[in-house]
């Protein structure tokens, strides 16, 4: 119980810290006037003065922070000044389903891909399939995702669009599942694959080394002494043991992507998700919009962290009896 309470306290502290950090980045950076930047380029003096008053920039930093949090979370009426006073919070929630679809598809691919490559590489450790897969894994995490996306577009939308391979690919953009379920799947398959390539590389490699480490465990020797076959050995014993570290990593990556980490993919494939929203904010310097998305994404990550912790306790019964298992491993990629 004390462990849960202290965990809760830490989580609240991190949440508070993030909000202060994001606030500081946007409104306390030495340099120019935040109200001028919120108003956007070429706004009139009256608009700037109105914003300065509305956001309380003529008040102290603490009061400003409190009013900003109120705009963002309590009254949820933080408005964009570039897009004619549109409600930023509503826009983020409107874009969220697109991102959720994309990231879910990508997660499907990357978990499947990592399982296959990690298992194969571990089974053939040291031989050519292992070397090939490890080389491909490194290649996968060396490719900038936005460039890969453009290459995929080049092939599937232009060069080979008329061949059997890519004839099914719809034009860039998003089709909601409510309109056409198959269209929804079709428009997301290639973006999700592009997004998942780097993660397949990372997760495959982690899984491979975890599997090999697990195979050295006494418990696996016991399984062999029981007369377990290779499939049972790898899948039910080694994978069950080594899946643990991947689970915690997966939760964080999934949450970060959900919170806008998939921005580059969404931009390249013209998917109107949270990342794309941020990108639009960038081009118009719409600070409230960007701040809202960054803030929400960070909160996603913290909440996912808590969920992963719970799942971890479920998967590894030893955790519950011990306390203080806060930071396991680290994320290995952006």
């Amino acid at each position, binding site marked *: 119980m004390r462990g849960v309470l202290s965990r809760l306290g830490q989580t609240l502290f991190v949440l508070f*810290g993030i909000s202060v950090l994001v606030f500081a980045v946007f409104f306390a950076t030495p340099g120019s006037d935040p109200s001028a930047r919120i108003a956007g380029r070429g706004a009139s003096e009256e608009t700037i003065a109105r914003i300065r008053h509305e956001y309380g920039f003529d008040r102290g930093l603490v009061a400003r922070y409190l009013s900003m949090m109120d705009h963002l979370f309590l009254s949820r009426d933080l408005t964009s000044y570039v897009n004619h006073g549109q409600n930023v919070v509503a826009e983020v929630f409107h874009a969220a389903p697109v991102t959720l679809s994309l990231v879910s598809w990508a997660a499907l691919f990357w978990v499947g891909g990592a399982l296959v490559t990690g298992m194969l590489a571990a089974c053939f450790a040291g031989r050519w399939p292992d070397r090939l897969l490890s080389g491909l894994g490194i290649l996968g995490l060396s490719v*900038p995702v*936005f460039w890969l996306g453009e290459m995929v577009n*080049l092939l599937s939308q232009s060069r080979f669009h008329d061949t059997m391979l890519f004839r099914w690919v719809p034009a860039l953009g998003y089709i909601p599942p409510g309109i056409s379920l198959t269209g929804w799947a079709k428009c997301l398959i290639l973006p999700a694959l592009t997004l998942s390539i780097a993660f397949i590389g990372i997760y495959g490699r982690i899984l491979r*080394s975890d599997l090999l480490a697990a195979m050295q465990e006494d418990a696996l020797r016991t399984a062999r002494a029981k007369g377990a076959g290779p499939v049972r050995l790898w899948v039910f014993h080694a994978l069950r043991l080594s899946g643990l570290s991947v689970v915690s990593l997966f939760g964080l990556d999934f949450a970060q992507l959900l919170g806008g980490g998939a921005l580059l993919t969404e931009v390249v494939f013209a998917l109107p998700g949270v990342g794309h929203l941020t990108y639009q904010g960038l081009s118009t310097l719409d600070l409230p919009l960007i701040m809202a998305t960054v803030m929400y994404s960070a909160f996603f990550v913290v909440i996912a962290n808590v969920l992963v912790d719970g799942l971890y306790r479920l998967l590894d019964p030893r955790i519950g009896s011990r306390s203080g298992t806060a*930071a396991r491993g*680290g994320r290995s990629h952006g």
Partner: protein
Amino acid sequence: MRVSLAWRGAIGRPSVLFACIVLVGLCLSACLAPFYAQGVGVDPFASNLAGSVMRDGRVVDVMQPNDNPLHLGLTPIGPSWRWGAYSLGADSQGRDVAARLLYGGRSSLLIAGASACLCLVLATGCGMVAGVFGGWIDTVLSRLLDILWAVPVYLFAISLSVVTVGHDLRFGPFHIGADSFLLPIGIIALIYVPYAARPIRARTRSLMTSGFVLAAQGLGASPVRIVLKEILPSLIDTLLVLAPLIMALCLLAESALSFLSLGVQAPAASWGSLIHDGEGLIYSRPVVAIAPGLAIVLTVLALNMLGEALQNGVRPMRTR
């Protein structure tokens, strides 16, 4: 002088050889960029929409009329694949893609290398302070890094860039120009500090309880002396392994920021901004976007291979 364990374990692997050749070649080509530009007589930073170039013994316009039925718009000249001006063709401004690629490599490698160094310095500072002092200092620092880590890295870099890049910044006596590389370097270094600080902190903590540090403490060595004489030299392996991996991440982050026009500012170019320039020509002149992308892939691949080889040198395991 103690030869690093990591380096000793890595020397002589084919992947290390490949990585070193690629990296040295890229640095050389980046250094030689002005010679190429002068040698073939192009200015990689000035637009050249009305220019012309010798191709197959004929003078050809750099911007060619489109081959659509209405001949609307202009398409830049394609690659000749031969030594000389416009060997990789021109971009939408009529500039030489090959020359810009070399100059872009300069910016990309410079920013990635500098930010990786800065990141490691900051991370070593944080990690060592947390690891050496422990207690509440460790808790506070770890939590602060957790906070940084909870924000998606690219999103964090983007928000910092939006606020700072493109404006002149004044920090007291310091003045950072809008087009300075210092901002992207600082931003990219900052976002990867938590990533690098975590292993450094862990290593420091384990070193603090190791025999030789306890012995030094027993002899009455001051914390400063322990850090300088015992901890720092033992961290070299960790840093050496981290350096290429961090630099690879920094290069990818830089290219992403520049792709979003938040990294290096025009007229300067980096590989990321070159891909951005090539985006509009992707269907007609794909080489403009393909070439810088391949350069990024090659560099990051070499760095990752180097990092992995060094890592395997540190812990030679069966699981390699």
